[in-house]
């Protein structure tokens, strides 16, 4: 019989989050993208120990979804290439510019040796990662899955978005000088899912994910105009990447439902990139 999927924990981290002292050495070379993913993942796992577990966990997988990956790290690598010349670029930055670097960190620090999947999709990669994790838990011997959304809205993207926001007529034309730089927006959301046998009564159950995505205009991927969530429990703070909005809205809606003691959450998303529904039963 197909197993059920319990949502064990949800964690949100955004720019400016502090790294606990005992993780600072392990993360000393990590870029901010990986750090936030690790903070969210470690938080969801409840792994506050000062050292990594000695025993590996081949029965726990990591599923990470992202729209553009560590874009800012990619640009820092380009900086070293432009500034230092060919053959002199930074190996550390290159290895961190790979989209699955964050999953590598999570796996190493938490000694997770199960499947590790990084998914890149311009629409709702967290929902795609959630769906893959749910299927793996229902149909294989995997005991748990850490599902992470990690996003980085580079100043380059923010500036491009400002140029596209033409309604005020105050935007600058192509080729003109930029005005002032903006800080990179970063954020990560992590859910810990567990496989449980049917009939076990406790905890929230991830029942169904319906995801129907379609190609969209590139300007949507930049501005996310027309993206709607229901329920939408909280506004997106300014420091959070626009592409993290769905993961954040779903997580907040779940917290809100849980706080109010509601029996279920039927969360819906619609946008030019498609539509999605998530059904969760609460205890």
């Amino acid at each position, binding site marked *: 019989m197909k197993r059920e999927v319990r949502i064990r924990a949800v964690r949100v981290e955004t720019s400016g989050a502090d790294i606990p002292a005992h993780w600072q050495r392990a993360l000393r070379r990590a870029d901010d993208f990986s750090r936030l993913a690790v903070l969210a993942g470690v938080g969801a796992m409840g792994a506050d120990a000062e050292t990594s577990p000695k025993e*590996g966990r*081949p029965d726990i997988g*990591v599923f990470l979804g*992202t729209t553009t*990956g560590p*874009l800012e790290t*990619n*640009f820092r690598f380009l*900086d070293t*290439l*432009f500034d230092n010349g*060919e*053959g*002199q670029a*930074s*190996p550390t930055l*290159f*290895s961190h510019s*790979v*989209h*699955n*670097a964050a*999953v*590598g*960190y999570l*796996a*190493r620090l*938490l*000694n*997770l*040796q*199960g*499947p*590790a*999947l*990084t*998914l*890149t*999709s*311009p*629409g709702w990669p967290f929902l*795609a990662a959630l769906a893959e994790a749910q*299927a*793996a838990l229902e*149909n*294989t011997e995997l005991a748990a899955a850490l599902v992470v959304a990690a996003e980085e809205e580079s100043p*380059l993207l923010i*500036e*491009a978005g400002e140029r596209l926001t033409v309604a005020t007529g105050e935007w600058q*034309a192509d*080729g*003109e*000088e*930029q005005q002032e730089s903006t800080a990179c927006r970063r954020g990560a959301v992590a859910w810990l899912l567990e496989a449980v046998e049917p009939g076990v009564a406790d905890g929230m159950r991830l029942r169904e994910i319906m*995801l129907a995505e*379609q*190609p969209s205009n*590139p*300007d949507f991927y*930049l501005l996310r105009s027309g993206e709607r969530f229901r329920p939408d429990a909280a506004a997106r703070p300014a420091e959070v990447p626009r592409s993290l909005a769905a993961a954040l809205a779903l997580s907040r809606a779940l917290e809100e439902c849980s706080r109010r003691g509601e029996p279920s959450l039927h969360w819906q998303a619609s946008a030019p990139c498609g539509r999605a529904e998530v059904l969760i039963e609460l205890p």
Partner: protein
Amino acid sequence: MGDSAAAVAVSGLGCLSAAGLNLDEHRNALAGGEVNCGPVPAEIYATSLPFPVFSVAGDIRAVVGGLSTDEATMTAVAGLSRTGRLALAAALEAIARAGLDPASLRGRKVGVCLGTTVGCAFNDEDYYRAWRQGRRPPLAPLQRYLQGNISTALQAILQLAGPALVITNACASGTDAIGVAADWLRRGRCELAIAGGADALSRIAGNGFTSLLLTDADPCRPFDESRQGLNLGEGAGVLLLERRESATREGRRPQGWIRGFGTAGDAWHPTAPHPEGIGMQRAIAAALQGSSLQRRDISLINGHGTGTPANDLAETTAVAAVFGENGQVPLVSTKALTGHTLGAAGAIEAIFTLLALQAGKTVGSRRCRRPDPAFHYCPLAEDEERVLAGPIGLSQSLAFGGGNSGLILEAAS
């Protein structure tokens, strides 16, 4: 992920790499045909690095034009990145070889799951250089990037209605994309799946691997005792997958089967494999378990075999642990035919594995003149040839981030 209750049919294959512009040319290369490894062609990018690469020779747009008469497709090709063009060309070949017209797929629940690395990075150097100098370059390159996720782009061009995802598991992406797509089919998320991987040569990746001291200044020598590293390559491999009953119902004769898939992490190092290949061992075990096969059923192992000292040692150690130090299953690498095509590697190598299984024989890894005596498992040398004991083989991938994947394929009888 390792569970696979039912074999999935491989109904069509398509590939481009330095080894050729289509499946037949890859078959010829596998049988001993010449493959060029040389400087990066100027039309791809200019570089002062002395490391040779394996580039796709010829006009990819012309390859697409030879496979599609659809005007909209040809218009869309112009807006695609080189990686996207490679992916589209391989997909169109796989669709054609399955006996399907791309137009017949429009609006149908056809999934697209492709692996890439370079193809998902915004590497427009001119745009970024101008931007960091405080200018506001025209947005077109950025818009192309945002619309250029290769799976979503193929979904748009072919007007498909199924799921679309890019797997970015570094060098295991192509293998993992096939595993994920096979799972979609088993779960009924789509009726057909375009699965595989694509990556184009890039100055960024060239400098990245050089900075890590992983590239060889000569043509690579996987598994050879004198190996010095990898050569980068480019290409795409696509498998058109469907459920057995779908192939039967439609009267399509499968080229082969996806029998199993397993993936596991090393939890060890950002860029180096675990020295004993523990993740690879577990990935093979998961693939075998999910397919209900035994290791004795495996007749060929197409290794990741990049030619780097660390990869080849870890991989042979893992193979020895699973198949025994005196194991008789031939272990080969095809990287000397294609270079390391990163996100495409697993898919192209799955296709090479199927081609060898179909032929019922394999030759040793090109330029592996003396397998490293330090290995616990002896790969097949260049001058060796083996008749395969059966139709089932294993294709392996290892990746940055500690990812390891094994894909079990069977040639159709």
